[in-house]
């Protein structure tokens, strides 16, 4: 059987093993027919952060408008107080916490791709890890804004941290909210370090290619004087592996700890042990959806088809499908435990969620099931995974669905807990919506600034693949065509 037949055979039967993928990884990321003859500088020219296309101005412009809406809403909020939000008794957590959890989740794909896939030596991650990591950073920034502003007095938000103070107070370390402070700030710091360390060799490349003084100095400082010395590379690779090893448990712990905010409380629908694993799966689910949604237009606008291939989308869609099924299992278990507990409040919650006839929130629950469980199941069909339009809309549906998941968890449970006399209904205000769309705009704006000024694809890893590939060809290995399904 020739290599090409084997490739087809494996694609049909799904019998990919790691070794066969490793052998062909260069062919998957870089199209050999187009690139093996090409000179390396020309190839890298595509990856430099210099391309300004008109979509850039449109997207960054839209992002900028929404950043201003965000600033306006934050100003109103800080000047007036958090009463401008819809949060009120009995629903003390509204859009702020929904959006916080939603954004933290979106960040998780970046860490998963950069850490866990690095440890598993899945080299296909090379062309998507950099911007997935950038997404993590910006998503955690968006997330962090909400609890800080929810404190009501964000200028004293440092009170959250343990430090000796004249009030002689220390944080309550038994509270999941304090765990959150530690988890989220650690997550942000470690992600930032990992992102920065990953970019040092690329900063050196940009420093050496710079033709004018300002980029040369800025990238020169960011590169810290990186020479690419073999000794430095040795330590660098060591540090990368260790940072990946440290980030991997972080992926699992951060969203587990976020889920403790709910699971540690006695509110009906919150106090379940299924929360940590299903929150983590949900985070990866939403995160991959965001990576797909973002990489589809970027790939087209910046002509990155050789770097982000249809196989990447196929694999990302499969990760999304798998985590989506875990999430669906989570919903099933949540419902089962509610019923199995036999407790009246838990049973009433299930009724509140599921009864279409006379409960105020069932629309949210059924939207959740539609967007998060029904629609993603189309990813079982290989044709759908190869259709970028379909993939884009499914990913959007997953992101909406994951938002509804948090909406179902937070206001439904809070609006009707144990005391019927304090039942209520949650209505978000225009400031809530302004801040929500504002953070989306902030995220888009930051991502496009990142694309403009920093290398969005890891250049040294692509060079490594390129050399790996040319080496193979020189030694008489067959080069198999990529499975591009254009």
């Amino acid at each position, binding site marked *: 059987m020739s290599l090409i037949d084997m490739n087809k055979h494996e694609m049909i039967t799904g019998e990919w093993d790691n070794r066969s993928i490793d052998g062909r990884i260069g062919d998957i990321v870089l199209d050999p027919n187009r690139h093996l003859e090409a000179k*390396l500088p020309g190839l890298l020219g595509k990856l430099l952060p210099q391309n300004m296309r008109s979509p850039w101005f449109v997207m960054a412009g839209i992002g900028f408008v929404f950043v201003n809406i965000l600033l306006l809403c934050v100003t109103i909020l800080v000047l007036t107080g958090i009463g401008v939000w819809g949060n009120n008794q009995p629903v003390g957590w509204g859009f702020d916490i929904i959006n916080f959890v939603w954004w933290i989740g979106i960040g998780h794909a970046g860490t998963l791709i950069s850490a866990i896939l690095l440890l598993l030596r899945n080299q296909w991650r090379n062309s998507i890890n950099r911007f997935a990591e950038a997404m993590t950073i910006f998503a955690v920034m968006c997330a962090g804004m909400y609890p800080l502003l929810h404190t009501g007095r964000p200028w004293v938000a440092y009170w959250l941290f343990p430090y000796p103070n004249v009030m002689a107070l*220390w944080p309550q370390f*038994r509270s999941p909210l304090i765990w959150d402070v530690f988890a989220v700030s650690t997550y942000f*710091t470690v992600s930032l370090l990992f992102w920065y360390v990953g970019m040092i060799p690329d900063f050196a490349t940009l420093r050496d290619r710079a033709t004018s003084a300002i980029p040369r100095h800025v990238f020169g400082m960011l590169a810290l004087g990186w020479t690419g010395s*073999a*000794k430095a590379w040795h330590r660098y690779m060591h*540090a990368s592996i260790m940072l990946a090893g440290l980030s991997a448990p972080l992926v699992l712990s951060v969203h587990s700890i976020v889920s403790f905010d709910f699971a540690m409380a006695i509110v009906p629908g919150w106090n379940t042990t299924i929360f940590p694993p299903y929150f983590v799966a949900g985070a990866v689910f939403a995160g991959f959806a965001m990576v797909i949604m973002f990489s589809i237009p970027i790939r087209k606008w910046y002509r990155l088809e050789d770097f982000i291939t249809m196989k990447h989308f196929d694999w990302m869609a499969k990760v999304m499908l798998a985590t989506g099924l875990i999430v669906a299992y989570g919903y099933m278990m949540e419902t089962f435990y509610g019923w199995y507990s036999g407790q009246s409040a838990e049973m009433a919650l299930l009724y509140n969620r599921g009864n279409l006839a006379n409960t105020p929130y069932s629309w949210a629950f059924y939207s959740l099931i539609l967007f998060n469980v029904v629609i993603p199941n189309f990813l079982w069909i290989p044709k759908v995974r190869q259709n970028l339009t379909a993939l884009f809309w499914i990913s959007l549906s997953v992101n909406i669905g994951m938002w509804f998941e948090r909406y179902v968890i937070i206001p439904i449970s809070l609006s009707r807990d144990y005391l019927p006399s304090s039942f209520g209904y949650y209505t978000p205000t225009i400031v809530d919506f302004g801040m929500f769309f504002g953070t989306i705009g902030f995220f888009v704006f930051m991502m496009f600034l990142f694309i403009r000024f920093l290398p969005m694809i890891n250049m040294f890893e692509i060079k490594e693949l390129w050399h790996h590939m040319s080496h193979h060809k020189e030694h008489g290995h067959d080069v198999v065509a990529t499975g591009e399904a254009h």
Partner: protein
Amino acid sequence: MSSGRDTSPKPFGVVASFANPELLLEATRRASEAGYRRMDAYTPIPVEGLTDYLKFKDSRLGWITFLGGITGGSIGLWLEWWTSTSAYAHNSGGKPLMSWPMFFPVMYEATILFAAFGATFGMIALCGLPRPHQPVFNAEAMARASQDRFILCIEADDPNYDEKKISEFMKDLGAEEVESVMTTEGY
């Protein structure tokens, strides 16, 4: 400018550039066999096996990271223990003052945070960074060492250092360009 120290340019080493990692690996192996010890290679990508030929071994970074983790975990747990049992000891829901299962998450996150500091800043420090100017940057070939050229530098403090001999040797090994590099005035 400088006081006392001699900062006039001195020979730094001989820099040879190669077109691909295979040539560089071969050259490094041969240079090592020829008895050169004070040398380093500069490459745009990590090249596996180079450090073996350079006889370079350093496992300190793993220990630094480990120590970072231990420090973080201890500080985290100590902080929780001290604040909850003495600095601000108060009965919360009848739980023991030292409620260690509840103290695990913060300790865990602190361990990861400090270990990551250890790995990052340890790596930067062991590499001798930040150091924006380095003598080897005076080599013209270095402008491409971060892009598409693979460079071997035999440094002037090698006991067998002989500019002419090394230049010949490098050319025989297939170097595209060979140049001798001086340190910068004032450094």
